């Protein structure tokens, strides 16, 4: 069983695209899978065409137990469930701050769900916040999509520093290159620089139109175009990640 948080301090790097496609592949492989959409923008929720119940909100989420159970939705795909996001999640940090043990709240909410699912994916909003700290405690692995640019390099350094600060192992972090553009020389150079670093996976997700258009057809690209380049890339990435997961 493992909880995999898809995270990057930066926005728009392909976190949601990754979470959506990998959770679909995980379920397709026969593992019961839950995708938790923690981003108030609700992009994962949107891709799966789910609407959260009117009564669902951030305090229900943080309460956990039945309040969460009752809001999990089956997706169109066998073995894959979704915990939808609500716009009220934008107040997550304030809500967390009001609670006792505010750093371990998400972990506590996920605990009973760990019994029921083989994999839980967390689609995280960008930034470093109290929520991110919660997520780093709760997750067994932090999967970081990285666009190979100089800026992303900095983001990675920031992330490591933050993990050190809160006493979390750097080895939780798995990194892969996202939205890689063949023609950009800078991408190649950055990748060459980083590929040898610990935790950097040897599979990349190229920049592909089929992924970009996911918002139009609202399905994982792996489900809609299982034979596409995009699906193949996610498939190889998932196989690679599975080698690193804690089994048990």
């Amino acid at each position, binding site marked *: 069983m493992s909880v995999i948080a898809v995270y990057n301090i930066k926005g728009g790097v392909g976190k949601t695209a990754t979470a959506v496609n990998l959770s679909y592949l995980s379920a397709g492989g026969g593992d019961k899978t839950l995708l938790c959409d923690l981003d108030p923008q609700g992009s994962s929720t949107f891709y799966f065409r789910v609407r959260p119940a009117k009564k669902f909100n951030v305090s229900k989420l943080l309460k956990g137990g039945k309040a969460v159970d009752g809001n999990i*939705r*089956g*997706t*169109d795909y066998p073995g894959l469930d979704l915990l939808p996001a609500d716009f009220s999640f934008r107040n997550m940090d304030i809500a967390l701050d009001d609670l006792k043990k505010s750093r371990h709240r998400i972990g506590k909410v996920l605990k009973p769900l760990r019994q029921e699912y083989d994999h839980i994916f967390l689609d995280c909003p960008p930034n470093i916040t109290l929520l991110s700290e919660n997520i780093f405690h709760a997750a067994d692995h932090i999967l970081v999509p990285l666009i190979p640019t100089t800026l992303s390099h900095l983001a990675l350094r920031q992330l490591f520093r933050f993990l050190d600060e809160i006493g979390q192992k750097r080895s939780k972090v798995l990194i892969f290159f996202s939205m890689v553009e063949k023609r950009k020389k800078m991408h190649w150079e950055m990748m060459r620089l980083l590929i040898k670093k610990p935790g950097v996976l040897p599979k990349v997700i190229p920049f592909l139109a089929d992924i970009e258009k996911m918002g139009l057809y609202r399905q994982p690209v792996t489900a809609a175009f299982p034979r596409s380049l995009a699906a193949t890339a996610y498939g190889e990435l998932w196989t690679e990640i599975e080698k690193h997961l804690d089994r048990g």
Partner: protein
Amino acid sequence: MIPEPKEKIWLLPESAAMNAIVDDIGQDFTIEIEPQPAVTITWFDTFDWRLYRRRKVLLRQNKDSWYLLRRPSGEEIVSLQGNGLVGCSFSSDFPPGRLRTVLEPILGVRRLLPLVTLDSSGVLIRFLNQDEKVVAFLFFHEQRMRKADVVFRTVKLRGIRGYDKDFKAVSKSIRRHGIVDSVSPFYALEEGVRLTGRCPLDYSSEFSITLKPEMSARQATLAIFRRLLEAMQRNTPGIIDDLDSEFLHDFRVALRRTRSGLALIKRVLPPEITETFKKEFAELGRVTGAARDLDVYLLYEKDYKSRLPASLRGGVEAFFADIRSRREIAQKELVRSLRSPEYREMISRWHDYLDSDDGGEASENSELPIKDLAGKIILRSYRRILNDGRAIKPSSSDKKMHRLRIHCKKLRYSLEFFASLFPPADIRTVINQLKKLQNNLGAFNDLSVQQEMLHQYLARLRPGSGRNQQLASAIGGLLTSLHHEQQQVREAFFSKFRRFARSENTGLYKKLFG
């Protein structure tokens, strides 16, 4: 706990048309229709329903996929896909993995038999809400049974977590179309099996019969023998086809029970019948014994190989290869005997006799109420064990232990013949007590059989080559450890027997059967 996705299956009446139903429901939803690829499904279980008994159903889909499902929910426990899986019959035929790990302890030495094959085709309907999100699935299934002109038509509604309202709405429309007979996910399989003349749990190697206390001894005895004859006959085809070693084993157990019955239930059947069939069945015991002994030897093969160093395994291999070829011969002889006119004629004479209304001439005890006679038989058996058991000393010969084992079996058989006449809880207690003693004696016997087999092997081993000498000393080592183990079992016997013979147990026998 996550609620499992809701699922409901109904029988589809002849009159119900898929299109009409779908059109009707389609008013509230967007609909997607997707024909499903045709598949062939075969249901497998052992002859004695080991999987079904444990709430499991094993299916092979087409030639390359196996599914182990939970009964009655239909939920998947484990599945396996791959080439070369078509001919799996024993658990050891499956590649190492989850499926095999689950099957191994359940199947034991038994073979998986195909029970029924269905050619299945269907259509999947998806119901989508205004967001184009799927909220329910409906499957129309048509399953055609091989070798029979029967089609099972069902419709299955599967809900999605968090979309209960839609499930209810679709379910209601379905009912409106007169589809109301809800059935289990295994409906077509179970009905199909019935058409082949079998039905789930129709065979068990345990003996059970319901007798009424007021039955005459003769009626009851005939009923018991009929049940045992049925067990022998049901196992005969499996022996002849050499499906697995349990058919012969169960056959011989029924035969032994019959012989014990003939010996224990005295002066109920006419003496000439008893005498004739005692002889006939003794002969049958002999004829079937050779093959069974070799079967038993072969069951030790894996264990021995694992106990010997790898370098010597080859030598033992030759020994078991020899046993296998001897078993081939014994099996052929056995088949010849079971197909012989003499055997068939004997069995049909026995059958005719058991089916005759009057059971022939009356004997002294024929008209006694069975309950009275049963108590006497059980008590006599019990006393015999007490006497013989007490006479066993640490210095007694092995023979005495073996004889006691046989008497315990006889007591066990008579308890099982007559169990229905006594309070079930008491019978359970009495049988459990006896079982503990039988386990000790069984282990003792098992160790004797193994030693005897290894002695046979040593006798055949030609001295000479260095390897053979090594092998001989390895086997010698095994023998020593078996002998040692047997001594321990024997030492344990005395305390087991004391427990069995203690006054509370004796009191219970007197109260129940005296």
